């Protein structure tokens, strides 16, 4: 039996939390037009399918954890949604902020002098982005020169192996 048939991967997020995750992932992965001056107007919303793949991966990741960790990570997602008022003084949920405001909010969270906020940032950003640069064009954008992360290296030094100078 192939391994995929045995896996029974299970989701870990409610629809509401998935919506929050989608909004955060969109901000994490937004980019700027090449000619943008930096005033925010040239922000490019990341491809919806790419964001969706990351939401799905985050969902399955949480689903693979124990009940307690699932609960804790779910709480972090909820906090991410409600903290703009504390971090940037905006009385709005994170998912309702404009893309530019969301980026500013997340940046402020990352650099916040209260370490718990910085931890909240990293605790959600990492699992949300684990899969972001893992396949296809995003993987290629890292400069990774193999077709997939599973592809073997092109060996150019095989002839010299096994010898130390």
């Amino acid at each position, binding site marked *: 039996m192939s391994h995929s048939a045995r896996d029974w991967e*299970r989701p870990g997020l409610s629809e509401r939390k998935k919506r929050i995750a989608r909004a955060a992932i969109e901000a994490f992965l937004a980019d700027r037009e090449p000619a943008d001056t930096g005033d925010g107007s040239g922000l490019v919303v990341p491809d919806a399918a790419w964001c969706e793949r990351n939401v799905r991966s985050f969902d399955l990741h949480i689903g693979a954890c124990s009940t*307690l960790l699932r609960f804790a990570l779910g709480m972090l997602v909820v906090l991410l949604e409600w903290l703009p008022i504390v971090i940037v003084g905006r009385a709005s949920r994170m998912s309702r902020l404009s893309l530019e405001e969301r980026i500013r909010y997340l940046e402020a969270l*990352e650099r916040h002098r209260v370490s718990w906020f910085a931890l909240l940032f990293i605790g959600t950003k990492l699992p949300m982005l*684990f899969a972001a640069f893992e396949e296809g064009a995003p993987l290629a954008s*890292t400069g990774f*020169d193999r077709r997939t992360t*599973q592809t073997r290296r092109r060996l150019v030094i095989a002839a010299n192996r096994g010898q*130390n100078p």
Partner: protein
Amino acid sequence: MRSLFGGLARAPAARIDSDASIVHGRELSRGFRHRADVVVVGSGASGMTLAAILAEAGLEVLVLEEGPYYRHQDIAQFTPTQSLRRLFREAGMLTAIGVGQTPLISLTVGRAVGGSSLLTGGVCYRIPSRVHHEWVREHGLTELSEARLEAAYVEVERRIAVTEVPVDMRSLSTAKFVEGAEKLGISMKPLRRNTGHECEGNGRCNFGCPIGAKRSVDIAYLPSLLAHRGRVVSDAMVDGVIERGGRVIGVRGQLLGGAFGAPSHRFEVEASAVIVACGTVHTPGVLRAAGIRSYGLGRFLTLHPCARVVGRFDDALHGWDGALQSCFADSLDDDGTLFNSVYTPVNMLAASFPGVGPELHARVRELTHYGVFGTMVHDEAGGRLVPGIGREPTLLYEMAPRDLARLKKGMGVLAEMAFAAGAREVLLPIFGMTPLRTMDDTRRFAAEPLDARRLECLSFHPLGSARMANDRRRGVVDDSGECFEAPGLFVVDGSVLPTSIGVNSQVPIMAMATRLAWRLRDRLV
């Protein structure tokens, strides 16, 4: 009968409903009751090693593993995130909670047939002589002298094909840090790894070698276990022991991982020897379920806290081409800091770059220019495992001020190495910190106090939660691994190490397990 989660389930009556030598517990439609000569709980570095040796001696050995089983050819096809979800406990997000001036520590351990051995970078060290001396002189454990373990080391290193990593297998990422180290007068030596001469330098050892070059226990020991009288049941979590007449004579547990919502089934296995090899984090739970309350159970946990430093250079390094780990510097003034070369898979490196949106992308586009190196601390015993809510225990860790200072010093030295080799910026693993741009920034970092809670700290070698002692008042198991409080119950994994060792732990744990297996073989055969 004692059990970790109470005794609600009914005792099973049937035999194992499969003739396969590796039984996928999640596919069984009913529980089982089984009798073997030896039952081993946990199939990681220690459990699999011991199980194979005893099976080779003619004993019938049953290995019970909580995690799933995948062939190494399947693992080689997993993306890194699939590996995280399928092979790592808590999908790679297990965390030790920092107490006081201590960071949260991200702790990785394996949960699959092969345990953490599947996930190693392949680095192989022996326990340093000074640690052996300490165990003999200060702990009175003469059985753990270097000389007594010599034959076991040799046997393990032969079976897992330990060889020195040739210089030309170093990645350019590593070469940059080596260049910087040389300029600072720090000499780097080649590492030894369990990859024989097969390693191609694919740079993804932690998520499964594409060619099976790394001799993890599923490759080095499992085939022999199965060729003799050994069997493995995966997805089988032990949660209690069976006692008779004051002796532990078996274990009981639950089959996991069936289709969502499907009923789970119970099993019981009786044997002449019961071996616990659940790893440092999970062995105390099984021992507690056996009623053991020995001094030190779940205490004296050490983690070898690590940090990774990332530098951006002018040259494109393609740091993923080359042996994942290839050289090391053992310590500065012998202060217990180790520097190991390492690389992080591209998608993980990209995700961990600081910044959001455009700032993140700017770094990702430059990713080929980034090099990575690691530092690790030989820590004092600051950890504790307490029963958690549900399956996983809670890990509390208080970092000794001396260890925090060493970790900070280690990061500073790595930053200096990077700048000495021409780095344009250095990213320290500190949340929200502005990247260092010059050697002066590094000196300022060294001079300023560090808020430990902002540190991104990692651990791969938890050790010592059920430590070995020569006296029942000082530890949990004796020098043959048998529990002082539970005759018939043996522990062989990383939990029995009396102290932290300051080097990567796989070979030391396997050598100890080999020695214990030889002693058991002499008793049982």
